[in-house]
């Protein structure tokens, strides 16, 4: 019983990144979240911790790639808008 309530399964994080960031990398995160729950129920705490850290890794990977792509797009779009405004201005 000890410690099992402190193992995050990263379920909500993996759903958020799947919906808003990067679908292909969010799916494995959800898979590992499901595994955490199964392992916690079975009392396999060490295995649950391992699955939890894998879920965490996929969440951060998806979040990181999503954020980099979105920021790059915003910068490019901002540049394009500024450029268009400059062309119109002169």
């Amino acid at each position, binding site marked *: 019983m000890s410690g*099992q*309530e*402190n*193992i*995050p*399964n990263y*379920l*909500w*994080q993996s*759903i*958020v990144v*799947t*919906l*808003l960031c990067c*679908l292909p990398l969010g*799916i494995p995160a*959800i*898979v590992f*979240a*499901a*595994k*955490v*729950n*199964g392992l*916690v*129920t079975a009392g396999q705490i060490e295995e649950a911790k391992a699955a939890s850290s894998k879920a965490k890794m996929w969440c951060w990977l998806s979040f990181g790639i999503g954020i980099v*792509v*979105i920021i790059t*797009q*915003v910068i490019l*779009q*901002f540049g394009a*808008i500024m450029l268009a405004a400059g062309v119109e201005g002169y």
Partner: protein
Amino acid sequence: MRCGLKNLIVVVLVGAAAFFLWMVHPEENGFIPRCLFLQGTGFHCPGCGSLRAIHYLLQGELAQAWAMNPLTVLLLPVLLVVASAELFFHRYDLAHRIRPRWIWLLLVVFLLLGVLRNLPVYPFSLLAPHHV
């Protein structure tokens, strides 16, 4: 309840994002980029329309939010409850109570939605982001 700096940052960031999304419409604002996946393939992924759905939810237009992405509308309350429990109360056991079979079912729904909403046939085309 834990009121660490991390939680304060989360609340401020989420609040700012919600305020921004409440104010601006993702389709009409030139600075919010279209998803790279949508631009590249032309397909709607299961998450497509999530930002617009949240925008309409914040504006109180439930039917329009549903038309953008029904899955996001259904999942958002659950996500808010679980995320709050974990962030503010360190109650990781709440998410443990969700049986693995429900998470597997969610994955199946995800993949099915990803296929069905791209079919250009009547009942399925309602699953793609659209205006009501």
